[in-house]
């Protein structure tokens, strides 16, 4: 997971995709990914079509390719799984460059690689064009339980604070010439985690008291429910509809 999580993927901008309401974007992403996952793995052309669609969205949102590629590191674990699949799968074997591989495993590996990559890129596009606050309000509009959204809001609001607290602890450890080099040092790191929990929990209690003293009665006040200048949500349907068209074209082609 590394340092990728310590900052959000959001990339500030003012494109059509940025201006779409968050709930429409989440639904569009869900529809698109569902169509991709439901596509039979043999229809290679359809997957190419999906990739072109995502490239079009990235172009409209003015997100450079390098930004997306750098953030695709999260898919490394399952790329490894996909590469292993042809080696360990059963079924008919074929020789590729002198290595005996399973035909079925090759297809499975391709399937996982294609669908997983399309899903990751689509999710990156959502994260890059939607800031955390807009996303939380979008989830609220999608009728997620209010308490769940509130918990997520607190998490998003305080994750930087908690991460900074952890970073300070690491600076304190390292300034005393400590470096975790082997498993024996796990104890020190875990004690840090324990101290972090106590500090985080106590911070939560303080935050709650501060909220109560400012009149909190179970729900956060919404100051601007409707941000200005939003694009019509219908436009977000363009991605899943186009994906459906590609899937349909792929089905006729073969």
């Amino acid at each position, binding site marked *: 997971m590394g340092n990728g999580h310590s900052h959000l993927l959001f990339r500030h901008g003012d494109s059509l995709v940025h201006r779409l309401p968050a709930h429409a974007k989440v639904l569009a992403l869900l529809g698109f990914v569902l169509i991709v996952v439901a596509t039979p793995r043999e229809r290679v052309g359809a997957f190419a079509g999906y990739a072109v669609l995502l490239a079009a969205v990235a172009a409209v949102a003015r997100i450079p390719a390098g930004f997306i590629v750098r953030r695709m590191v999260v898919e490394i674990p399952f790329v490894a799984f996909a590469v292993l699949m042809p080696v360990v799968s059963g079924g008919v074997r074929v020789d590729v460059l002198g290595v005996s591989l399973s035909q079925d495993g090759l297809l499975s590996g391709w399937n996982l690689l294609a669908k997983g990559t399309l899903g990751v890129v689509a999710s990156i596009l959502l994260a890059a064009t939607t800031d955390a606050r807009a996303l939380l309000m979008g989830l609220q509009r999608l009728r997620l339980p209010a308490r769940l959204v509130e918990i997520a809001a607190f998490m998003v609001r305080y994750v930087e604070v908690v991460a900074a607290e952890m970073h300070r602890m690491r600076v304190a450890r390292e300034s005393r010439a400590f470096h975790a080099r082997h498993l024996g040092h796990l104890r020190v790191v875990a004690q840090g985690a324990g101290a972090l*929990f106590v500090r985080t929990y106590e911070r939560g209690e303080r935050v709650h008291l501060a909220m109560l003293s400012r009149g909190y009665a179970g729900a956060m006040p919404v100051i601007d429910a409707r941000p200005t200048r939003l694009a019509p949500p219908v436009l977000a349907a363009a991605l899943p509809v186009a994906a459906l068209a590609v899937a349909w074209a792929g089905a006729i082609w073969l």
Partner: protein
Amino acid sequence: MHVPDGLLDVPTSLATAAVAATAVGVALRKARDELDERTAPLAGLTAAFVFAVQMLNFPVGVGTSGHLMGGALAAALVGPWTAVLCVSVVLMVQALLFADGGLTALGTNVTLIAAVTATVGWFVIKAVLAVLPRRPASVVPACAVGALVSVPAAALVFVMLFAIGGNANLSLGTLTATMLGWHVLIGIGEAVITALTVSAVVAVRPDLVYAAHGLRPALKLRDADGILVDVPAGRETVATRDSRGLVVGGGIAALVLAGVVSFYASASPDGLEYVAGENGFLVTARDHVVGDFALAGYGEVGGIPVGVAGVLGVVLTVGIGWLVFRAVSRRSQRSDTRAQSR
């Protein structure tokens, strides 16, 4: 460990999404008992903690590093339901804001990483605590075992899902063996970190460890002569829920069902009797030893109508149950006082 899009097919993903939604719904309701009205800020901060701890890498050797999953740790620290909520929120935010874990696989990830690890971890922790001496330090080995079991349990559930809806032709035996092997190793790392973290918290704030609630020794008072004495009985306020309404309502419902509704019951044999009859092994079943008793067969054997038989049955069951309950509770009270006097 996050499942990406496309690893499981659409029906399986939808089914796990339904399971995950149910788990989160129940957890939302139950978490209120664990955190009362402070749920939102404390669960949110705990979710931020789980998120941060997952970033905490530790060297595993040969140049690689591992990180914590945190389901069992969260269950031990804040209780199982709040843990399910926190880890689910972490997964949701990771899928939507960090592109980590596919959106169609979100239900699968919540089921595996939040629901299975937290509940399995919690039940194992409770089971181990039941056999260990009752003191806060017992939480540490219990959490180690809980974390150790929770990770392979999640891996097993994943193998099951993969067998149902996996898009691959892998031999199930090999997959099970590989997944279990790896995840027992991961579980050992998880167990060590969870135990050390919990022991660090227990040392400074034992009241913050949910699994350690009720494990602290009873309050002792020092009297005027400086001698330690137990708190006199009746001083401790024990919250007892008034169960009279439940008992009266349930009793009336049982009597109505037995006395009135049973008149409308089917006279046909029940499912097992039917199958037994079809396959011809009903004749081998001997008549019950009380077959000649007036209430046998819930029918009009001895001239007693079925409704009266039902009411009598309910009264008898309640009476016997009450006697057994009294006997058991008296015995446990006696053994408690014996344990205290020792």
